[in-house]
């Protein structure tokens, strides 16, 4: 199977504004250090790490919301590392993103229908209303929800709107950044089951960023573990949980509070 993404020796640094002198430029802080991996078509890749480990930065470099400072990102064989916005525009339909907080990523003054339609219109789709309805059907929201505003929906329903907006464009790749961390367990279970079904049905490739290894294990076939901007482990999910190799992976696994009163923490 061909790789949809191939990331080679990726480096990314950003100016550290907390250390910026009054005059002159801020020192740069290295966020990603020599990150390499391949993501085959149809796979669900989990990306885990603590806060500040660079997992969101890696995701944003993959969908080119950030421009890497070194290395390469190949998408479908094409080098997208330093493409400018005009050259990226036609590619943007093919890789989409779902954000953590639907309350801040959905325009509160637009109805659900408009929210899903906007990127479709931007990318020049012809039959926009039909595609909006189809997307709502796919994520299991009633069609009349198109007339509602985000604040009228529950957290789980809002996150489905975020998913509908992403899949309406029929992308090849979706980046999901901590999309269930703000949800209750019941809505979380619904969204995870939905995502799993959509990946199969629509032949998607997915990168799923999370700090929750229980969720990763449920959903992902492969896992990247990041620590301070570097990959410390890249393994098939089953292998990672059966025999974690990196010390940091073991630390992460040990820290999960298993819902079982007999499993006490060391």
């Amino acid at each position, binding site marked *: 199977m061909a790789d949809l993404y191939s990331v080679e020796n990726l480096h990314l640094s950003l100016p550290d504004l907390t250390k910026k002198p009054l005059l002159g430029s801020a020192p740069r802080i290295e966020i990603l250090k020599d990150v390499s991996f391949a993501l085959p078509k149809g796979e669900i890749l989990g990306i885990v790490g603590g806060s500040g480990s660079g997992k969101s930065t890696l995701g944003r470099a993959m969908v080119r919301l950030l421009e890497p400072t070194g290395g390469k990102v190949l998408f479908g064989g094409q080098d997208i590392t330093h493409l400018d916005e005009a050259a990226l525009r036609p590619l943007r339909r093919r890789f989409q993103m779902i954000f953590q907080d639907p309350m801040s990523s959905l325009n509160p003054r637009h109805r659900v229908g408009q929210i899903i339609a906007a990127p479709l219109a931007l990318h020049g789709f012809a039959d926009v209303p039909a595609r909006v309805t189809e997307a709502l059907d796919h994520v299991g929201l009633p069609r009349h929800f198109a007339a509602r505003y985000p604040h009228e929906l529950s957290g789980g329903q809002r996150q489905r709107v975020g998913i509908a907006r992403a899949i309406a464009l029929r992308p090849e790749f979706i980046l999901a950044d901590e999309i269930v961390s703000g949800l209750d367990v019941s809505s979380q*279970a619904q969204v995870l089951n939905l995502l799993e079904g959509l990946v199969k049905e629509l032949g998607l490739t997915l990168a799923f960023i999370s700090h929750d290894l229980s969720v990763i294990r449920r959903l992902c076939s492969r896992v990247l573990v990041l620590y301070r901007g570097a990959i410390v482990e890249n393994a098939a999910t089953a292998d990672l949980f059966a025999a974690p190799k990196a010390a940091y992976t073991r630390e992460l696994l040990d820290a999960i509070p298993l819902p079982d009163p007999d499993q006490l923490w060391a």
Partner: protein
Amino acid sequence: MSFLKITGLSARLKGTAFPILRDVSLEVAAGEVHGLVGESGAGKSMIGKAVLGILPASVEITRGAIELDGMDLLSLPPAERRRRIGATAALIPQDPLTALNPSRRIGPQVTDRLVDILGWPRARAETRARELLAEVHIPDPERVMRSYPHELSGGMRQRILIASAFAAEPKLIVADEPTTALDVTVQKQILKLIAEMQARHGTALLFVTHDLGVVSKVCQSLSVLYGGKVMEATTVRDFFRQPAHGYSRALLAATPKYTDPAASLTPVPDAVIAAVQAEIAAHDRSLRHG
């Protein structure tokens, strides 16, 4: 002998009939850790706020009693009630960034409570603050006392809030989702720290969380809430081993377990929600007529 006793507490959105809490009763013994669990909007945080007398202005208590260390809180005049609560109870808040004043150094933020509420001299309060910061395993307490919140990590800030919660030797602490903003490895350290401090000081703890994994690690007993009503109150062991209520079983089935990846994840079924709502409606009717 229960240290905190809540009896038939009901609250609603002021000026409406919209219920926030429905006939809530629970007891927490001295030195016990009691979990309040449920989905968002279940009312778990509201119980903690009612005990501490910090309910939002839009919420009013309509009936019931809160007994803290033998005092009937709701019958006291407001000023007296605030003083008594301040001397007996404390809060560990959810978000360590918003709970600390960004423009003040850490030292005075920890000592204020001792000086203002307990009337300690500033020098004695500062000595105590340094001891406490050392007790929550903060390296170099002297430097941290002079730091501003933005200079410290999230885990460090949460340690400071734990230290200030224990500062005045309260007999009850309400911990409101204290680790939700932290990542798992830091969460583990902080939960172990809260458990260690709680055991050493013999404090009763009301622990608000939506994470059943966390409950199983720190609590001895728990109340499961839905729609402001207690669905099941039991020991942690019984809850995980033989949950009595249908809603408890549904919550457990929706919680992913990394040791059991093949198990299907079931959202709380509509039938369970319907049954729970019917139970609540029947209870509401019996309250009105009873």
